[in-house]
């Protein structure tokens, strides 16, 4: 099976001294790809800068204008977390376009696994606002392309932070199922189990908030129990993974206790949600400890390709099992309330 990755696009102009979201993250990601030693089974697609039309499927036009103008004026801090530089607008468009090219290649081959090694990450970016290190929502832009082709898209987001941007963008879209595992409480403060989607997409958002210290066994179990039935009913035709690796136990940005072996197990789960080969793409989101990032990406991609190479055993024994029933209960209640409200409003 081939691994399809995006071509290089020169991300080094998007950096801010001392900031954890830095170009070296992509160096670590590409080192993980090289560690796979794939030879001719590695396919690198041409770089592509997302067009305005691509971006407008997800983002507000005024926001795009402001972001472009801000970057061209030299950039600076957008908020306490998020920066942009003179080059960030161009770089962000290449990061957004990378997923589109990888998907196009997988479609043509009808086989393989996709990996978008691009930055800045995207899952916090809202339709009209940058936040949480994110400028453009790369995975949402890729999902929009698939939607335009009539696909049903499952987005699995295992970054340690809730992907509030992706959730907001597809909140009321019945052909996108958004599933997120994340630490809670933690930035951005959203992602409770009771957030289940909008009126037209009830049960198309599945949040699995987990306490600090959670290990991989609990996370996987929560995915199976809470998200499993919803994914089965949704029956996706494509699976996009917002693959942040900051849930790793060595990551400085959070307090979960996963290992690279856990990401391999999560990968198996995600890949098995796809109808066939050539329908899964991993998008780099967070992950700020470079060694953990490299080993976790390596474990993820080698597992997805069916030749697992895992350097750390899966973790177990952490807290959070008791949260699973609570999450399901919160989901049920929220769905019942939404249905009851609908019935009240449609009653003669």
């Amino acid at each position, binding site marked *: 099976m081939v691994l399809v990755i995006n071509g290089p696009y020169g991300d080094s102009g998007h950096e801010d001294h001392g900031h*954890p979201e830095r170009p070296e993250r992509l160096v670590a990601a590409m080192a993980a790809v090289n560690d796979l030693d794939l030879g001719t089974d590695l396919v690198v697609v041409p770089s592509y800068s997302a067009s305005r039309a691509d971006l407008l499927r997800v983002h507000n036009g005024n*926001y795009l204008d*402001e*972001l472009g103008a*801000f970057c061209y004026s030299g950039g*600076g*801090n*957008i*908020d*306490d*977390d*998020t920066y942009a530089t003179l080059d960030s607008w161009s770089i962000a468009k290449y990061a957004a376009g990378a997923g589109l090219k990888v998907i196009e290649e997988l479609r043509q081959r009808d086989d393989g696994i996709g990996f978008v090694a691009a930055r800045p990450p995207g899952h916090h970016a809202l339709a009209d*606002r*940058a*936040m*949480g*290190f994110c400028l453009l929502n790369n995975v949402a832009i890729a999902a929009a392309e698939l939607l335009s082709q009539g696909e049903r898209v499952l987005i699995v987001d295992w970054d340690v*932070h809730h992907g*509030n941007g992706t959730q907001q963008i597809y909140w009321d879209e019945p052909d996108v199922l958004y599933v997120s595992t994340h630490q809670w*409480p*933690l*930035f*951005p*403060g*959203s992602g409770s189990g009771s957030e289940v989607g909008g009126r037209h997409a009830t049960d198309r958002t599945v949040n699995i908030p987990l306490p600090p210290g959670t290990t991989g066994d609990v996370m996987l179990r929560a995915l199976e129990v809470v998200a499993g039935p919803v994914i089965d009913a949704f029956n996706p035709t494509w699976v996009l993974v917002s693959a942040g690796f900051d849930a790793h136990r060595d990551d*400085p*940005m*959070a307090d979960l206790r996963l290992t690279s072996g856990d990401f391999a197990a999560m990968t198996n789960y995600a890949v098995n949600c796809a109808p066939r080969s050539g329908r899964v793409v991993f998008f780099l989101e967070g992950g700020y400890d470079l060694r953990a990032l490299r080993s976790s990406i390596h474990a993820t991609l080698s597992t997805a390709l069916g030749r697992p190479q895992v350097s750390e055993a899966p973790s177990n024994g952490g807290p959070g099992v008791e949260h699973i029933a609570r999450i399901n209960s919160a989901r049920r209640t929220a769905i019942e309330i939404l249905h009851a409200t609908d019935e009240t409003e449609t009653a003669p």
Partner: protein
Amino acid sequence: MRQFENIAVGYDGSSDATTAVAWALRAAHETGATVTIVHASGLLEHLRSRFSPDELPAALQLLAKQCSFDERRIRWLVSDGDACSVLLRMASAPIDATMLVVGSRGEGKREGLLLGSTSLEVAEHATVPVVVVPASYVEHAAVI
């Protein structure tokens, strides 16, 4: 006025935010409102916490004294999220703020910049009245 029952004000440690808190405390002093001062804890704060959730920052304790406001009537919160989302959340349960107060510019923001303007974002999306306190405020406040 009901708007002056329960005031929530954002605080990021900047001079603009301090000015906004001062306005909120004076308004609350005159109207008998309660005040919630909230700090949005961003992604980077996991690396370097700026404020303890357990204790009102010393600068705000001093400010309360200067405004003759009883510190015990202040609720201090550190909440996960970006400044805009956190302040908007204050208008919902359990805080149920009846007015949101924000400084015109936050820390590190550039003058005249629309992108990333917390005050504009809050004013656009809020469900309760919003007061944007200009950096130059001394006795008067601008109300949007």
